[in-house]
């Protein structure tokens, strides 16, 4: 087997390094969306529309940054657009007998389509947008490969900083308590005098803001710019990661890093010359190539989900309102 290992390079160690590097490079959208969805679901409502919010945020962030020349303005615009879409979701869901999952699916399609329509002039923007800056986390290493892989974007750092903040806020503040009580038992919360729809509106709006910021990361921190069909399924996967993370912000971080990093396995294995794994079972020989490697992020997620689940606590941590009868 010919290999592409450079003299003085990291050899097969470059595969785990690539995973770490890739996790730092691409996991932020998963993180932002899953944090946002955690907030929304904690209030007892599901917003499946975050895929659309993510894409609208990506487009709006890129467009505003291109027009204003300020990355910060772009990021803020993405957050505002995300928040507005969250409000729209909450407003529709507050109508009687409206199902939040159906509204979410509608808003997902709406968001993706609207972004495609409005984003047309920004596929090739007249002015190259200002990008969100990078921070070097590898300054301690003399190895250039290590340093290059530990370049992280400021928006990722902010996302990571939000994790303990949200976890603390949910657990220790009055706002967090109200949010959780609405999500656990709406009737009780109503009896206590809280506006169920009001709390859910704020929670869905906050979720939308975060998803919009995740979208800004796609276009203002990751390379490639705005285009049609950007990040298909990223927002949906992030919503699924919330269940995987058991509605805990810290777990959202691990889930996002794991899923983002696992995507590096297929390209990184090819780069060190490993194209196929042969396993001899005696009666037959398995030949696992690229196609199996590309499945790894999904297999890993499924595997951990099965592993951490048991019959008795499979939905442990789910806000109780989500388990009540829905119009499905």
């Amino acid at each position, binding site marked *: 087997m*010919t*290999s592409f290992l450079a003299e003085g390079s990291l050899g097969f160690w470059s595969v785990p390094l690539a995973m770490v590097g890739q996790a730092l490079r691409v996991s932020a959208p998963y993180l932002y969306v899953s944090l946002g969805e955690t907030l929304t679901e904690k209030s007892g409502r599901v917003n499946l529309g975050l895929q659309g919010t993510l894409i609208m945020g990506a487009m709006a962030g890129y467009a505003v940054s291109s027009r204003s020349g300020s990355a910060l303005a772009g990021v803020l615009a993405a957050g505002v657009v995300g928040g507005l879409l969250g409000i729209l979701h909450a407003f529709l869901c507050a109508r009687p007998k409206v199902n939040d999952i159906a509204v979410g699916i509608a808003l997902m*399609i709406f968001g993706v389509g609207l972004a*495609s329509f409005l984003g047309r002039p920004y596929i090739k923007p007249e002015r190259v947008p200002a990008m969100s800056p990078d921070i070097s986390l590898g300054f301690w290493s003399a190895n250039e490969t290590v340093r290059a892989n530990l*370049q992280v974007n400021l928006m990722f750092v902010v996302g990571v900083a939000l994790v303990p903040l949200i976890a603390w806020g949910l657990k220790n503040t009055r706002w967090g308590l109200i949010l959780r009580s609405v999500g656990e038992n709406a009737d009780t919360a109503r009896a206590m005098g809280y506006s169920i729809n009001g709390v859910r509106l704020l929670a869905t709006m906050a979720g939308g803001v975060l998803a919009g910021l995740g979208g800004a990361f796609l276009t203002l921190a990751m390379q490639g710019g705005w*285009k049609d069909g950007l990040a298909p399924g990223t927002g949906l996967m992030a919503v699924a990661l919330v269940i995987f993370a058991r509605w805990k912000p810290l777990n959202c971080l691990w889930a996002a890093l794991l899923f983002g990093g696992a995507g590096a396995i297929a390209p990184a294995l*090819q780069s*060190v010359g490993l194209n196929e794994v042969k396993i001899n079972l005696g009666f037959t020989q398995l030949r696992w190539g690229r196609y199996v490697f590309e499945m790894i992020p999904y297999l890993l997620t499924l595997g951990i989900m099965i592993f951490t689940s048991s019959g008795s606590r*499979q939905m442990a941590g789910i806000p109780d309102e989500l388990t009540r009868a829905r119009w499905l």
Partner: protein
Amino acid sequence: MKSLKIARAFAAALVVAGSLVMGGCDKKDDKGVSTSAGGDKPLTVGFIYIGTKDDYGYSQAHHEGAMAVAKMPGVKVVEQESVQETDQVVQSMEGMINNEDAKLIFPTSFGYYDPYMKATALKYPNLTFLHCGGRYKTGDPGNCGSYFGYIDEAVYMSGIASGGASKTGKLGFVAAIPIPQVRRNINAYLLGARTMNPKATVSVIFTGGWSKTEAEIQAVNSLADQGADVVTCHVDSPKAVLETAKKRGMMTCGYHANGSAINPETYLTGAEWNWAPIYIKYVETIKAGKKPDEHVVRGGLKDGFVKTSPLGPKVTAASKKKIDEATALATAGKLVIFKGPLMDNAGKEVIPAGKEMVQTDDALEGMDYLVDGVLGSTK
């Protein structure tokens, strides 16, 4: 038990939503219409693209050709973007025929041909359908035709530029999926590089799809980690590859269209399509009331179907000389990229010594190997 039900509802909703997002919502009728004066009834020509017409890539190259056609007198151009390689392309063709009275249609993506374009051509025998990608076979409907460019000639020039400029002799190639056209480009890139550096290698990473931004970013980073200092690609839009390479301080060669705006200092050259001449020729033929002479049309640098980007500042003098020589050969129709003895990267001889395969050789269009010096899997 309740929670199980919810889990199922969740899963079902995600599946439904997922298929909608990935399958259905690209449907959009965005028809750019441009008309030119002249003649009593203009000839309507339809173009169908897989991507958007300003994607820095494959579809943009065709759109630029379509715009050259739109400037011709007595011709009206209708375009539709983001059409998938499914029944959607049939609807798109039907729409152009029935609503716009199109007489000539160019469905430009590889997967449009079989069965979609063939079936539509049978239904409308008096109209002409011309497909990019070259899948016409004897026995296909007579009003079908296909055209394609030998872009590997331009990729070969990228290889010469890269082989000369690389310090490490390690070149990277980010490829979408292993089909013959892609393998031919990878091989031509290596063979070009070896004319400057006989020890040069090309490490190829397949991302598994035409437009997978995350995987493309990772692929470039992995190639840089392994010491590659030049990278090129064959994906739908090379933008993410070029920008990531810039970040990692690598030199680049573009694909589909000129990408030098992203990194003018380190952009060596690139392989570009140039569809305008062939589109104009086809439209002139149809306007004159004739049928195209041949069902299969091919052309390379000589015919102006493809071209190389202007050479960047990092291209060495020796490479430049070699590129000029090879371009002169190509212009004279004498460039031979694939000649024996040539081994594949599994150690098997694919072209015996003394045999030269000219560019028009049909066997090259079914290329199923990667040549010796390419590090990567054929599958």
